[in-house]
């Protein structure tokens, strides 16, 4: 049981990293990125390939994962800079499907739909499964804390406040002399780097990655997590991720009530419950469990 709790907590940590990444892009930068799974995949593949066929140590894999995802994020953002949110939503969704297609079809690089197994985890072979779970949790939790501190600091820094100003009204921000394009690309790349890092953690923790993992389902979970937690609120991103994992995993224990139903019906009910719970959270707490609090006006102070 304890081992399971650590494993659920590790997944919650990975989800929290994803939510933090999306929070930089969407919550702080106001750019929707439904291509999250694509960046998650880029990071996972970069680190897995670097540490398996590349034979590099895991920390370098993590760095490569963040770097590659940041580069892809910056490029995609540059390409879509002029698009309004709803268009961006669909373009980024298409991007992640493209990444998945490439991962499935370019067998020479990614081993295709077989996926990459045996991705190394830190001291995995020396530890018992329980201890490996504890260690993974500790590492992921440390990463969450570091990223949380980093993004929270950025949010309060001039850079973050300028970004918020752009998100809320980019004409005004432009008038105030902010280089909007640069800010947006930076935010997108930073967020994507965090997503890529989460992907690397995922691969090293579970030891296996395959194109099927990166279907849009996980993107949906993370957006729901962020919306539930409080878009734009760094702590809210983590709270939301934990809430979503609790709903996902907790719903497994509903089975007891439904013993007369067949297997499919139970599975279907579980997913109905997940969907309804998430919609209910959004309706009851439309600004999230922890609504965004402004760290202080930036533009107003400047323009007055």
């Amino acid at each position: 049981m304890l081992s399971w709790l650590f494993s659920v907590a590790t997944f919650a940590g990975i989800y929290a990293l994803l939510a933090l990444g999306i929070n930089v892009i969407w919550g702080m930068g106001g750019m929707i990125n439904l291509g999250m799974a694509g960046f998650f995949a880029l990071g996972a593949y970069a680190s897995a390939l670097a540490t398996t066929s590349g034979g590099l140590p895991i920390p370098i894999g993590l760095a490569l994962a963040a770097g590659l995802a940041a580069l892809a994020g910056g490029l995609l953002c540059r390409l879509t800079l002029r698009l309004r949110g709803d268009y961006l939503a669909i373009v980024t969704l298409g991007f992640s499907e493209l990444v998945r297609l490439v991962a499935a079809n370019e067998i020479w690089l990614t081993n295709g739909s077989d996926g990459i197994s045996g991705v190394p985890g830190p001291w995995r072979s020396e530890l018992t499964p329980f201890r490996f779970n504890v260690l993974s949790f500790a590492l992921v939790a440390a990463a969450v804390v570091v990223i949380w501190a980093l993004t929270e600091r950025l949010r309060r820094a001039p850079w973050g406040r300028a970004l918020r100003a752009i998100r809320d009204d980019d004409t005004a921000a432009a008038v105030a002399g902010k280089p909007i394009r640069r800010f947006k690309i930076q935010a997108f790349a930073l967020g994507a780097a965090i997503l890529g890092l989460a992907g690397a953690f995922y691969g090293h923790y579970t030891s296996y990655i395959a194109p099927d993992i990166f279907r849009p389902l996980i993107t949906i979970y993370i957006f729901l997590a962020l919306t539930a937690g409080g878009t734009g609120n760094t702590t809210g991103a983590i709270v939301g991720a934990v809430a979503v994992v609790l709903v996902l995993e907790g719903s497994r224990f509903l089975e007891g009530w439904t013993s007369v139903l067949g297997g499919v019906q139970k599975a279907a009910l579980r997913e109905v419950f997940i969907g309804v719970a998430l919609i209910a959270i959004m309706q009851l707490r439309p600004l999230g469990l922890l609504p965004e609090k402004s760290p202080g006006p930036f533009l107003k102070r400047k323009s007055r």
Partner: protein
Amino acid sequence: MLDLLPQFLVNGIITGALLAIPTIGFTAIFAVLRFPNFAVASHATVGAFAGLVANVYWGLPAVPSLAFAFLIAGIVGLVSDEIALKPLRKHGALTTAIASIALTIVLENIIRFFFGNELRGYDLPLVRDTRFGDVRVNPQQLENLALAVVIMVLVFTALKYTRMGKAMRAVADNPGLADLKGIDAALVGRVVAFAGMGLVGIGGMLFGLGTSIDPLTGFRFILPIFAAAVVGGLGSIPGAVLGAMIVGVGEEMSALVLEPAYKSAVGFLAIVLVLTFRPSGLLGERAY
């Protein structure tokens, strides 16, 4: 491969015409309610299953079954919008869009709960293709094409000449002004939620004709729907038709130059190309 070009073109036009119907529904909802409703996937499935009930259980022929698919998908669209999405609309388009994804999960699994995962087929005869020179066309496809054209004509006529159609366009163009004119925007919203999802439901059944349907049916063509709507210009109904044609023809023709395993990439490339030059899609947003 070039000898197949005329055939691919024909395949593309037929796919495009089919794609146009749900795309119109999606884009109309966007035009009036101002958010991309990702629940089109599950509504297409709802339509496909409603058509199945009418056709297989009640023995109705294709066209009444399609009408039933329209009705049920429309009702589900209206009710689920009222309950799940409408309360969120004031919090922004993207919040609503994300809730619509959760709604998709719910609806898909309600269908799964009642119908299970088995593949099911319609009780409709299949016919073989007819050859015109080098090109073969299926009579069923021609019927679908005709149906698609009729539906499009109906939609355009309704938009142009009926009071509700005019009100819809007014709300889409300028909600504030429409309100001043005394148009009941809430009512218009309901009608669009109903009719839009109804069209998506028809699309779901049309795609399922001659093959099999299951709770994931709708997911097989949502990406092309989104791509078509964006290429044509979100919120533009003629744009939806044009976008659907471009994506449909593009996907089928892609076999000439691209590995077939990358078919979906065509929609994405079309989006990127079009948006690079026209950030609001080919026909912009207010073209009717």
